[in-house]
């Protein structure tokens, strides 16, 4: 049985422009259509031809970047917003956790707000009476329930809102990123409640940026990008594709940043902290590559990296050291080395050449890293020193911490019951 059926839904918003409001208003009254009188460049398409079906009893995840149309989709399914074209049919009572405690009145007590909010969400007074204690208990607000809501902390506010909404006991639950504000002890409680919903074969539509939770609880995932469905399917596959897309985007960002570094320019006095040295030997270009030779700026911890420097010595020089240094965003030196430390003996350099440092496995934790490259004399006199000019990203789904991802494995004796990751 289909619980939610979204058929070719398009939602167009009007860009805010006061000048055209009169025109719009007239057309709104005459034709009942708010958008006809507007030119296309005044419109924003939040959703574009979305179709999908959600089976009853399944948990359906919606992922995508900010502004991809997730919340609009949820609002349309909840009936708060209307699609510009297309059709949505929903079987069963819906409760939408879009903004918790949206209808609270700050001046009156939590108790009264529970009743009014409950009625707004479709409960009868009797039902609220029956569930009142449970609502208050779940929100952990027994002591404060008779205080005006304006005295609540934002956490208390959110807990009460969540507690009411979840106790509406809907057939279909729509959740929009509301768990992001909860504290460390309340969020697991909410997730428990959501799990409980799943076990009772209710339908859940779950919008979140927390991909780990999405992968854990969802049966199907839909990825929205710019108002269109990119892919629908099994969570792991969709999330992986989504992450790849993000990595591509980050790659582009870092590439642009890298390209913007112009080594040809005159380095002014105030930029001395980024580049300095006598330039007897010059580093004219730095390229980051993957092991297969592709220029790249986003790496996984297990990836290798090639740092390639184009150097040029204007005359013959016999004393030189090439070095690299990698720093994380906190400025901690993660690794640094040079040819002198590794006992290379400089003989001579003249004209153009290439220096390649190949790191076979980065083994760094997630984050942005900055790269120093330098060529100097053995006694430290700099020919050309580039400080933190280049950056790259290490991105993975591991959530480990520290500086370096040490290669490791886990094993357990048989009496310890523990499930390996999926």
């Amino acid at each position, binding site marked *: 049985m289909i619980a939610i059926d979204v058929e070719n839904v398009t939602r167009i*918003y009007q860009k805010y422009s006061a000048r055209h409001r009169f025109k719009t208003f007239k057309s*709104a009254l005459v034709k009942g259509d708010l958008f006809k009188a507007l030119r296309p460049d005044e419109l924003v398409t939040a959703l574009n031809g979305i179709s999908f079906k959600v089976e009853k009893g399944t948990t359906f995840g919606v992922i995508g970047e900010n502004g991809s149309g997730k919340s609009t989709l949820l609002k349309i399914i909840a*009936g*708060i917003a209307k699609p510009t074209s297309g059709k949505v049919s929903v079987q069963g009572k819906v409760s939408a956790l879009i*903004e918790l405690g949206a*209808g609270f009145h700050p001046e*009156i007590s939590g108790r*009264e707000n529970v009743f*009014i909010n409950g009625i*707004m969400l479709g409960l009868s007074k009797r039902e609220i009476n029956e569930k009142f204690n449970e609502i208050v208990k779940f929100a952990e607000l027994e002591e404060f329930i008779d205080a005006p809501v304006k005295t609540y902390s934002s956490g208390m506010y959110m807990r009460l809102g969540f507690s009411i909404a979840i106790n509406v006991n809907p057939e279909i639950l729509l959740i929009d990123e509301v768990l992001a504000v909860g504290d460390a002890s309340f969020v697991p409680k909410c997730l428990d409640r959501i799990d409980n919903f799943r076990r009772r074969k209710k339908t859940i539509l779950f919008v979140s940026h927390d991909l780990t939770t999405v992968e854990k609880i969802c049966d199907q995932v839909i990825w929205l990008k710019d108002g269109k469905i990119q892919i629908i399917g099994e969570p792991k596959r969709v999330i992986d594709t989504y992450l790849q897309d993000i990595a591509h985007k980050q790659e582009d960002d870092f590439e642009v940043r890298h390209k913007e570094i112009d080594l040809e320019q005159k380095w002014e006095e105030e930029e001395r902290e980024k580049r300095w040295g006598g330039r007897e030997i010059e580093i004219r270009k730095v390229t980051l590559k993957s092991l297969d030779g592709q220029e790249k700026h986003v790496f996984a911890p297990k990836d290798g990296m090639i740092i390639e420097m184009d150097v040029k010595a204007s005359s013959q020089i016999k004393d030189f050291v090439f070095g690299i240094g990698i720093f994380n965003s906190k400025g901690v030196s993660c690794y640094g080395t040079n040819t002198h430390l590794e006992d290379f003996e400089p003989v001579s350099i003249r004209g153009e050449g290439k220096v390649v440092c190949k790191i076979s496995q980065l083994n760094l934790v997630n984050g942005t890293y900055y790269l120093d490259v330098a060529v100097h004399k053995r006694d430290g006199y700099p020919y050309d020193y580039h400080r933190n000019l280049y950056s790259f990203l290490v991105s993975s789904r591991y959530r480990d911490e520290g500086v370096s991802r040490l290669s490791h494995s886990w094993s357990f004796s048989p009496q310890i019951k523990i499930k390996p990751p999926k």
Partner: protein
Amino acid sequence: MLRLIRSLKELYKYRMLIRNLVSRELKARYRGTILGFLWSFFNPLLLMVIYTIVFGFIIGPRDPSLGGSPWLYALFLFCGVLPWTWFSSSSLESANVLMVQGNLIKKILFPSEILPIVVVFSNFIHFLFGLPILLLFVPIMGKTFTPFILFLPVVVFVQFVFSMGFSFLISSLTVHFRDIKDILANLLTFWFFASPIIYPMTFAPIQKSAFLKVFLNLNPMTHIMQGYQNCIFFGSLVRWKRLGVTFLVALILFFVGYYIFDRLRESFPEEV
């Protein structure tokens, strides 16, 4: 038309919510004040005192039908000021209500017409609180009740329909034209003086000018105010035909207001 009636039927299902929201509104309004609910009585009373001092004692009642007594004049004023306050506060609050409560429209599946309805209702309750005071003053000021006071609910009903229609219109249009809020404040002041509240219709300068007479008669509030004055102050029969026509006008305003509200409904979540 069918759609309107269906929407109105739908509204009936929300009567519980309306009731709770009205009581919330009333509770929240005086929360934190020392006098609390008593303000519902004091506000119209104080207003009457001011008008009595200014128009009763300083300027002095000039119409013979009021017998030249400042106290009687105060009672006459109260007959009009009390229902007018209901109308004007409903309208002013309606102009804001969709924006102030925008969260409800944007985040919860919620029929937005409930908001202006709650405004009119809660101001109606305030009016009801003031009514006993008005009625109490009738014998004190030496007037007697006549059976015609039984027509009072009819007048109240006509005003209710009129206020409701006006609130629908104002609340929905203000979402798109925020200027209405400011225009409305001035319009209401003008409207107040253009209705027979501080002067009776029998006031000589009005009777002498054909223009003023027609103008005042075209104002629906004139007949509603006269309705109150006839029932309570003069103890005479309401003017049936005029009140009947006013009721028709109120009904038309109600449906037009609701129609426009309904038409604009879908734009609210984005605009408020």
